[in-house]
């Protein structure tokens, strides 16, 4: 069976605009969360959100490419530029070598709202502008990046709610492993705009600890009161090992397992069985035992029921092993469609520099989280293999296992 390696990574997130800044934030347990007064003016229950600066691409990217990018597309473009540079892939390579894109995304609310507001005002569709349709489709990231980077391989968007980015990596791994592609740009992007979050806020799923924004996201902590929405984009370049080796590409890590499942129950309430099956499947696929996993990057978003059920599922599979666990969402907030991809990058950065980033704000365990070895302060630790969980609405679950480059 063909082996699948990561040859490049790129990130644009609330805790850093590139790998170096993000690595620093992870190590120091820095939060990217703040308060957005505009959300309160709009009637949001919670004004908490990840904070990110929108990149200015004028002068860096041709106008024809720029106008089709919504905010999530801009984040994904920046992340992908970094990932390709690190993988030592340039546009000439992409033109001559079939490369695909599988990117996670599950909304384009800001673009849709803006274009329809324009239509209401002008009463003429031709006055909406040429970029709107390409910003508004859910496949906006894959469609735009495939044109910008002249990609010739597989090309579509993966919409799997908050597991989108993880499934995108899992599918990329699957396509390469089974000989269908040699290299694929995988990742996840997430708009951070309030447009995309109003209806979610209405479910009372967000933390309202507004007086302490950086303490609001507290996965697994007994006093958690909900998630904090966030966003950005994360890109990994997946390549078939032999072709990467022949080209002399940097080999950062190897994807060795992908597990997935569906809960088949409630649309928003997670359960224990579904995530457990995803974890077990990923372990089976990798051929590993639970004891061989050195670090678990939990999905845990800081919601009462989600974290509880994940803690039970992890304890069921990793019973008594005391495997270090942390949820980087404690710092980033919930990056949703992006999260599965960014968390593979966060974990890989930890693996590269031999540390476990803290699950900040984890102060008091509840009954389930007390059974896990949750790391709330940075520790130095050699990580050879990590596992990353991502779960989403509709009961979609995804688990990725990655091993340090040992070639």
């Amino acid at each position, binding site marked *: 069976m063909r082996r699948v390696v990561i040859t490049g990574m790129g990130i644009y997130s609330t805790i850093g605009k590139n790998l170096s800044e993000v690595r620093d934030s992870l190590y120091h347990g820095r939060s990217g969360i703040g308060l957005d007064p505009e959300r309160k003016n709009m009637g949001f229950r919670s004004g908490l959100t990840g904070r990110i600066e929108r990149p200015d691409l004028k002068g860096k990217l*041709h*106008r*024809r490419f720029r106008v089709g990018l919504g905010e999530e597309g801009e984040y994904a473009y920046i992340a992908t530029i970094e990932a390709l540079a690190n993988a030592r892939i340039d546009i000439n390579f992409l033109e001559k070598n079939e490369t695909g894109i599988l990117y996670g995304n599950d909304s384009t609310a800001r673009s849709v709202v803006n274009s329809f507001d324009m239509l209401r005002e*002008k009463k003429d569709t*031709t*006055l*909406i502008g*040429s*970029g709107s349709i390409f910003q508004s489709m859910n496949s906006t990231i894959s469609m735009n990046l495939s044109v910008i980077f002249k990609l010739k391989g597989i090309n579509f968007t993966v919409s799997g709610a908050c597991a989108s980015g993880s499934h995108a990596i899992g599918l990329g791994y699957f396509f390469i492993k089974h000989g269908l592609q040699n290299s694929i740009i995988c990742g996840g992007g997430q708009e951070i705009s309030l447009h995309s979050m109003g209806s979610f806020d209405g479910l009372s799923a967000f933390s309202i600890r507004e007086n302490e924004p950086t303490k609001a996201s507290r996965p697994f902590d007994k006093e958690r009161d909900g998630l904090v929405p966030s966003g950005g984009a994360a890109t990994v370049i997946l390549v078939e090992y032999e072709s990467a080796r022949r080209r002399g590409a940097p080999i950062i890590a190897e994807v060795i397992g992908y597990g997935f499942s569906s809960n088949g129950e409630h649309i928003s309430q997670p359960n224990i069985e579904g995530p457990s099956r995803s974890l077990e499947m990923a372990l089976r696929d990798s051929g590993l035992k639970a004891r061989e996993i050195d670090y678990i990057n939990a999905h845990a978003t800081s919601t009462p029921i989600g974290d509880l059920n994940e803690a039970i599922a992890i304890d069921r599979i990793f019973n008594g092993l005391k495997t270090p666990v942390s949820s980087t969402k404690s710092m980033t907030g919930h990056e949703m469609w992006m999260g599965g991809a960014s968390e593979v990058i966060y974990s890989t950065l930890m693996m590269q520099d031999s540390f476990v980033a803290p699950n900040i704000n984890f102060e008091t365990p509840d009954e389930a989280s007390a059974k896990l070895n949750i790391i709330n302060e940075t520790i130095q630790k050699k990580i050879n293999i990590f596992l990353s969980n991502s779960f989403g609405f509709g009961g979609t679950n995804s688990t990725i296992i990655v091993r340090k480059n040992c070639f």
Partner: protein
Amino acid sequence: MMLLNVREMQREKMIKTINDFLIDEIEIEKNRIKPTALLKKDLGIDSLDFVDVAVVIEKNFGLKIKGEEMTNVKTLQDFYDFIYHRIRG
């Protein structure tokens, strides 16, 4: 005579507005902006760019223009003339 001057001033202002837009928004290099330049071949304005041109024309001149009305508009000079005649009704 005075009327002619006013018209000429209006025309020059219109041309400047169009040129500024082509340079700033459509990002065409300034030295390519010539009356004889072909919109598609020389300036690279494609059908998608034209949608944005129409948006700016509406914004600046209050005119709604459609692609099908412009089948004879080939050069930048043709475009100036087309807009000028539409403004003047």
